[in-house]
């Protein structure tokens, strides 16, 4: 006696959260059944393996049918075929778009193209995440990217509006889109210690301060060719950053800057002497990073440079985080007292964000 057909359809679509997770994780029906058996569900409910198999199949079929709708979440809300309570709809969407930390670290900053998709096999092997799940996550990134890429207005708002994600998840996706668009390098060995959260934090700061959307809250001319978008860095701003070079190129200015910082921080830093000896190197590093951002290649290497030029030197001298904070604050503020320096606003836009990023990046 073999089961040819076995279905269960509820007027309200039944969603089993555990099975949904297994499905999202890319397990086959048989693997999912095995995992469920291991969870002890048979003992709890007195069900048989056959029942579990049938139940799992059924849920998988439902999820498979829902997947098409999950690709455009507003459709899930308006469709008539599956009657699902709103809270469940939200759960379905949120979970579907949730990604694995391990996975996102692998693709963050990479071009969301076919080429990358081919690498998913390797990523799957490396991270232990099933290929199916990798595909789903990758496709989610790509789908969100495609939809919001050309859109005006706030990146987070756009994502939320088109994918109905929670604020938190929408912010993460904004970071992913931002990184993918600017192709920031995140995979270097030096950067392995950084979490997705670190990058997402930086992305948010950069979106807020360094993109076109950041300049004008209300764009003066909405029809202008200039893109009012969160995804692209403000090219003009990057060009202008060259001007900051004077801070390290002009020896007097550099000395003055150093003395200003040292005066204030003397006795306040546990690593004062290290700071004093390293000041010029650190300052050169930070300013050179800014000056190089006109080239796409250097933009991509932003995080590598920051870690190399600032984080690593400090870390090797065992700067405590509080000292880093004090230093960076004083380093930024002191520039205002440099009479010969005319790019105060530019400096603040650059350093304000960079300071935030560096503090976040500075950990073991």
């Amino acid at each position: 006696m073999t089961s040819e057909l076995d279905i269960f359809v509820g007027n309200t679509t039944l969603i089993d959260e555990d099975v949904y997770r297994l499905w999202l994780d890319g397990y086959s029906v048989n693997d999912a059944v095995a995992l469920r058996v291991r969870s002890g569900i048979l003992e709890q409910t007195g069900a048989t393996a056959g029942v579990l198999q049938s139940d799992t199949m059924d849920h998988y079929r439902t999820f498979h049918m829902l997947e098409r709708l999950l690709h455009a979440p507003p459709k899930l809300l308006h469709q008539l075929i599956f009657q699902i309570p709103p809270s469940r709809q939200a759960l379905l969407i949120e979970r579907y778009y949730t990604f694995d930390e391990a996975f996102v670290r692998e693709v963050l900053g990479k071009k969301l193209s076919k080429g990358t998709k081919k690498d998913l096999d390797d990523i799957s092997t490396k991270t232990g995440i099933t290929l199916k799940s990798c595909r789903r996550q990758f496709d989610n990134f790509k789908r969100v990217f495609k939809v919001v890429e050309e859109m005006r207005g706030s990146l987070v708002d756009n994502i939320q509006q088109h994918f109905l994600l929670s604020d938190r998840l929408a912010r993460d996706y904004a970071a992913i889109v931002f990184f993918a668009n600017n192709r920031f390098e995140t995979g270097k060995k030096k950067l392995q210690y950084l979490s997705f959260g670190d990058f997402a934090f930086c992305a948010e700061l950069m979106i807020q301060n360094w993109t076109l959307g950041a300049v004008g809250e209300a764009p003066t001319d909405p029809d202008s060719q200039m893109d009012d978008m969160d995804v692209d860095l403000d090219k003009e701003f990057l060009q202008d950053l060259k001007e900051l070079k004077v801070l390290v190129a002009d020896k007097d200015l550099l000395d003055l800057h150093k003395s200003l910082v040292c005066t204030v921080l003397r006795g306040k830093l546990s690593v004062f002497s290290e700071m004093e000896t390293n000041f010029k190197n650190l300052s050169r590093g930070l300013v050179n990073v800014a000056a190089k951002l006109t080239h796409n290649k250097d933009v991509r290497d932003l995080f590598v440079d920051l870690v190399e030029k600032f984080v690593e030197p400090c870390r090797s001298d065992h700067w405590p985080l509080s000292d880093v904070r004090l230093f960076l604050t004083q380093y930024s503020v002191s520039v205002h007292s440099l009479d010969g320096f005319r790019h105060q606003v530019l400096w603040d836009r650059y350093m304000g964000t960079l300071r935030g990023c560096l503090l976040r990046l500075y950990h073991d």
Partner: protein
Amino acid sequence: MPGKLKVKIVAGRHLPVMDRASDLTDAFVEVKFGNTTFKTDVYLKSLNPQWNSEWFKFEVDDEDLQDEPLQITVLDHDTYSANDAIGKVYIDIDPLLYSEAATVISGWFPIYDTIHGIRGEINVVVKVDLFNDLNRFRQSSCGVKFFCTTSIPKCYRAVVIHGFVEELVVNEDPEYQWIDRIRTPRASNEARQRLISLMSGELQRKIGLKVLEMRGNAVVGYLQCFDLEGESGLVVRAIGTACTLDKLSSPAAFLPACNSPSKEMKESPFNEDPNPNPHSSGPSTPLKNQTYSFSPSKSYSRQSSSSDTDLSLTPKTGTGSGSAGKEGGPLKALLRQQTQSALEQREFPFLTLTAFPPGLLVHVGGVVSARSVKLLDRIHNPAFVGIMGNTRSYKLLDWNSFNSDEPETRDAWWAEIRQEIKSHAKALGCHAVVGYSESTSICEEVCILSASGTAAVLNPRFLQEGTVEGSLEQRIEENLPVGCGFCHIPYDELNMPFPAHLTYCYNCRKQKVPDVLFTTIDLPTDAVVVGKGCLIQARLCRLKKKAQAEANATAISNLLPFMEYEVHTQLMNKLKLKGMNALFGLRIQITVGENMLMGLASATGVYLAALPTPGGIQIAGKTPNDGSYEQHISHMQKKINDTIAKNKELYEINPPEVSEEIIGSPIPEPRQRSRLLRSQSESSDEVTELDLSHGKKDAFVLEIDDADAMEDVHSLLTDVPPPSGFYSCNTEIMPGINNWTSEIQMFTSVRVVRLSSLNLTNQALNKNFNGLCENLLKSLYFKLRSMTPCCLCHVNFTVSLPEDELIQVTVTAVAITFDKNQALQTTKAHAEKSLQRASADNEEMLQFPLELCSDSLPSHAFPAAKEHLESASSNSGTPAAQRATSVDYSSFADRCSSWIELIKLKAQTIRRGSIKTTVTVEKASPMGDGNFRNRSAPPCASSTVGVVKMTPLSFIPGAKITKYLGIINMFFIRETTSLREEGGVSGFLHAFIAEVFAMVRAHVAALGGNAVVSYIMKQCVFMENPSKNQAQCLINVSGDAVVFVRESDLEVMSAQQPAVNCQPSCTGEVTT
């Protein structure tokens, strides 16, 4: 031109991409009614077109309005080639034709294509302007309301129940026309959908005409079915109960917010009229005055008032239990006679109702059923084909003009069966059949027609016109002594149709009751039940040789009696195993396949307090002296006894036992064993065994004399009880659970299994089938585990045999959550509760303490005249319910009457029970009614916008139905030629059923409703051809679209609740 139909096409959304190049669609819409078609403009390049059309107006006959569906076709405009159809929407505009139902249909409808399924949605507004037409010879029956619900709909009151209406319409099936060979599957499917829609409309109109003729205004319990007879055609038939309904002026005004439907039903008659019988409420009850002779209902119908009055005038003489037998006899006859006058004028005194207004159901006789095997004739009629094929829109053919005897043939077949049912009912001393239903099973050219129902005695006053409003309520008072009246035998004890075993009612001690009661109706709301009920199923397969035509039919007719007998035996055994004594909602389905017959009986077992405690099951071996064998037997016996004990605990069956000294033994009858004799052997030691293990109770003996019997015993024990927190039943409500919370989940589950064709034996088949059903149930319990504690209600199994080795089982049911804590309380208090309530209700009117279970005071008068009558005739009575179940198979060829005799004989032996003189004395519980009733509707989250609930029940827990919007009756076909791509058979059917639900919900929402009640999937015909990667499925669903209001939203109402509720509790002092 009595009607103007107006349609507006507003917009579309989520349309499929029809133009690959642009990834867009140029959509327009054709709106068609009858032969008139309108078109909208083409809305270029959009998947969300905004047509916002003008009002398309159709001026039509109301006859057409009833028959025709509105047909909306969405197409993709193509400049160079033919326009591609995206899909269609059929809208039944019938709900717009009654004054009280919907006034406008407006909303988003899924656009459905028979090949692709749902493809986007379309927003449509439909209105109808009806002009009054006073033509007496009209062919339309606009205004007659239809309800699928098999009880009086919640916001109506039955003024008169006129009786049975039936009709059938026959046509050729478009699928079997020659043109089908050249047209696309889509065209063929659409032709079929449209034809069936037309036929349903016509059928409904014709039934409506019959109702108008009977001077009714509604059809309740409307059941429409399709017989896909293949080459020989397509039959659409319907049955229902014609009624005159009265809308309650303010249905919610007085109704308390109650969770339990039973309460609701019980109380509604009082509530709808706060002072039901102002002039007679006090004095109308006879009180102790034994010669009281007030007739509260002077203005009953003219033609029958004399007999009615006689009835209520009857002096109450000598109501001592049993003593009034002789005087009672003629009264009973009178009652019957007089009801006959009301009902038997009609050809078939049948009601399709399963629940009744209080007071209507007087006695229940037992299940009556009839089956007949017929050969479907092939029709050679070339004239047809030409006409049907030519036109794209079929005008419904009048079959009569082609083959004059065709509908008559079908009519005659059914008439024959109904006649049988009627005569069976008569044999049980009943003049009516309630809970009546009809079904067919078709395989190739063989068709089994089945009909079944419950023989009953009804109160005639509901069945006659001119009944005064007050009298109905009055009747209730008279009729509800203690909720056991319906159990009392309707037949004459001295002239029983079958030998049966009777005892005095364990509840009132005045009337005779059978030892077991089988019925097809729902548990009467006032019935006193001990513990909880449970789903009981008997399952059976029988192999049959493949044969052609008459030989095949003969083979089937020969098998049927065996099957029926076995099914009954199984039911009986399982009932005993559960420690229960009555079955409700019994539905026996016999399905015929190429090489086998399947029998599936489902019912809800309960312990009725009025009936005697069922005995256990005894196992006897054929060789009593063989030691090891004995051991085996005793082992089995122990297992069975353990199971019974466990079940009693599980279902909380602990009927209060009262020692015989208190009660006395009213019927000094020797105790008897009932036996199921498989062989004729009688082993002498059984008697002692019996007494040892079961004390004074009668027992049921299973003799194990062959492997078959062994198998039976095993199968008895393989039924596993549902996991804790779950209950199941196939009736509307679960006996013993009243505190439903608002969460409901309706579902349909379908399974198809393939049997290995090798060495199929009956046993292997039975085992497979049993396993299939049990596993299905287990799966349901597992799936719904998050809802516990909950109950699966209205569990409806349907079996079909689509192919040689395939068995398809379809289950539709609803899971309803309930409050566990309250449940415990309820169970304890339940028996007392109903008793108290019944008594209290009486007391209210009586204003003197009523004594129940008054065996110690046998002379105490019961107030109601009806009760009086019953006790008077208590000595005349006859057999037990299902013992009298008539099994009859009128086959085309031979009637197997000899078998019937055999079965009857066997059935008699099964149910010879002993008399147990126990009274169910119900003590007033300290927690009492106040406690019990004060539960309030749990706070339920206000339903989200757009949610449409679906339920096979007639009510929605925790909510009040405020309006019925009309009947939903939809027929869909879905076909695929890419089965694998759609996820195989499971994926295909899963998607289709989900789509059907969606379309039902969309129609309900468009009518302005938020739920479908009495939902039923009447047909789910699934055919596959995996090798061709094809499958096809036909689904027919129906139900009543309603508007409900959450009780939590009825704050005002709940404020009134205590006032209503405290009545019983303050009067409920029961003495013994």
